[in-house]
């Protein structure tokens, strides 16, 4: 069961709404309807589901209807037609009182220009949502202070919004929205008014927070990079219509139409793809008790200058260089366990390619991608990263699961 579901949600501004609705059913587009009726289509028959705990990004340029769409979710803007379900309760037919309860308990909003009340202190702002519910002062202050504490803002609680920087004000906006512990968080261009560095920090913080709080977040933005960074899934809007819904990688790999294609052309793919998309399987692995002669043979066959060494449980131990193994072989040692170099850069499969650059610069050995059990998923060498940067990644060509399987077989074979 999805947390939030919308069906054929439509908003028409202006007169002759009924006529415009009929024209939509006939399949007329925004411009034709404007010409015949004078009515403007804000959002046209939007339909999608959002799962619990998901960050769902709605992306579009200005005028695409994304802000209208998000405001219909808590009915700051009344939908002209269509349905909105939260936990299978139909929001769109609720009376004022029931709607107010939903707004108080289930759904909070964060605004582009923060929407903080200038005449209230940070604490008073944060407790607003609890105050209107009639919760007594002591308790609501306690909750608000906890929310501020989480955001690291408690020392500022008695200041006024205009005494804080933009980034801090938006942290207050977020703390205020979280203070009444809603299930759903609507974030309308929440980071768009911040300068790029602060913005990036805020994105990181949101991702970090989301790991523990697990809210359902609807995030509106006009910035594709932001969508790709934050979104578990992305809905792209144009002229009031949702033109594509999918993960960032799906949208980059298979744009639904020319509009989306043009849109994603210039995107920096290193900020979308992760280690598991560009890793390759190591040509061969060695066990720790292997004889130097065998290791040397494998390395020669595969033309390798170094080889990764794993233990019996297939966990990464380190690597040995060809030079060292040759040396060992000349001395007639039994196995290679003594010369294992443990200094191998290890990263997790979901690290962004963008973040791998630094690591790859500082190391001569391949970077090893390991999973939580320290098992090797694949390796990345410098040429993989450069390749990803220049040509992009053929998404279709890569299947992480398949890759992992092959690697394991390789190890078993050894």
């Amino acid at each position: 069961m999805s947390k939030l579901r919308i069906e054929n949600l439509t908003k028409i501004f202006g007169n002759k709404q009924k006529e415009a609705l009929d024209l939509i059913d006939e399949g007329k587009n925004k411009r034709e309807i404007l010409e015949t009726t004078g009515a403007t289509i804000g959002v046209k028959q939007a339909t999608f589901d959002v799962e619990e705990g998901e960050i769902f990004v709605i992306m579009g340029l200005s005028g695409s209807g994304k802000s209208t769409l998000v405001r219909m979710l808590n009915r700051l803007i009344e939908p002209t037609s269509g349905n909105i379900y939260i936990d299978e309760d139909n929001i769109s037919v609720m009376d004022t009182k029931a709607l107010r309860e939903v707004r108080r308990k289930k759904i909070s909003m964060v605004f582009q220009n923060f929407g903080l009340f200038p005449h209230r202190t940070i604490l008073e702002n944060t407790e607003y949502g609890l105050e209107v519910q009639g919760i007594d002062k002591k308790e609501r202050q306690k909750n608000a202070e906890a929310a501020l504490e989480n955001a690291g803002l408690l020392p500022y609680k008695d200041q006024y919004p205009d005494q804080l920087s933009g980034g801090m004000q938006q942290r207050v906006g977020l703390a205020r929205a979280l203070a009444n512990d809603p299930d759903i968080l609507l974030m309308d261009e929440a980071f768009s008014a911040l300068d790029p560095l602060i913005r990036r920090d805020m994105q990181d913080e949101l991702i970090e927070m989301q790991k523990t709080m697990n809210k359902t977040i609807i995030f509106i933005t006009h910035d594709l990079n932001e969508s790709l960074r934050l979104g578990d899934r992305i809905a792209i809007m144009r002229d009031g219509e949702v033109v594509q819904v999918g993960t960032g990688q799906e949208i980059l790999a298979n744009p639904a139409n020319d509009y989306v294609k043009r849109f994603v052309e210039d995107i920096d793919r290193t900020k979308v793809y992760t280690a598991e998309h560009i890793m390759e399987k190591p040509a061969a692995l060695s066990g720790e008790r292997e004889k130097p002669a065998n290791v040397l043979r494998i390395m020669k066959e595969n033309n390798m200058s170094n080889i990764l060494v794993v233990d019996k449980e297939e966990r990464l131990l380190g690597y040995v260089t060809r030079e060292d193994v040759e040396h060992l072989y000349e001395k007639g040692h039994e196995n290679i366990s003594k010369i294992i170099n443990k200094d191998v850069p290890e990263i997790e499969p979901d690290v962004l390619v963008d973040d791998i650059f630094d690591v790859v610069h500082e190391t001569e050995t391949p970077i090893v991608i390991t999973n939580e059990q320290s098992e090797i998923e694949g390796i990345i060498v410098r040429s993989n990263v450069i390749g990803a940067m220049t040509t992009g990644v053929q998404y279709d060509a890569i299947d992480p699961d398949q890759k992992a399987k092959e690697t394991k077989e390789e190890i078993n074979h050894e």
Partner: protein
Amino acid sequence: MSSLLDLLPQLPVSHGVTKLIEWITVHFSFLFDALENVGTKFMEFMTSYLMLIPPLIFILLVIVIAYFVNDRRYGLPFFAGIGLLYIQNQNLWGNMMNTLTLIIVASLISIVIGIPLGILMAKSSIAQKIIQPILDFMQTMPAFVYLIPAVSFFGIGMVPGVFASVIFALPPIVRFTNLGIRQVPEELVEAADSFGSTGWQKLYKVELPNAQSTIMAGVNQTVLLALSMVVTASMIGAPGLGTNVLTALQRGQVGSGFVSGFALVVLAIIIDRLLQSANKNHRE
């Protein structure tokens, strides 16, 4: 063509208005009489209490208030002190207190009626469409015209003076309240709504506090307009500085007219600066 227009009979507008006012006077006389009695008693009471304060104490009090309200600067308290001493010196103290009573009562009534009306206008576009032309009418119709029904409703004295002043001073507070609330940033209103505020909660916790400085500017305008009605109101027997000005006018006494007129100017400046400073302080 002109002969064609001559065929139209003259509409009995004047007659109609006269009849209407007469009808109102007759049928609501109980209300007007009661208002007049209570109002006169109250205002006489208020003036006599204001008169109980010795002028020196009153002047010192105003100086102290001016000092603290105006950011502890000396300009305003100095001016207020000199100005009030001048009024006392010219034997206009009692008249000033009558004028002050008239201004305070007229302003308070205007505010009490005006702010809710302004809120209503801000909340309902239909109310705005209805009230807007009435306000225009009230502000552009020459003030003397109000005096006539005021006299037929309330006779002569303080109460009809207040009535005429309220009609004259009401529009700015209504307009400024409406403007102030409509100017509250959309995002703040949305924020209030998105947290599930009721209409009243939104009004009290978000809209009025954010519209406050605009509303206070309206209060300032209202008070000054009430003050500017003082001379006009004196024509229907409202006591105060206006009476002196009117008498001087009727007798052609330039000097006496200037003395009382200048006292009104002094009073206006003190009230205006005090209100402005108070409003500014609040904003900071």
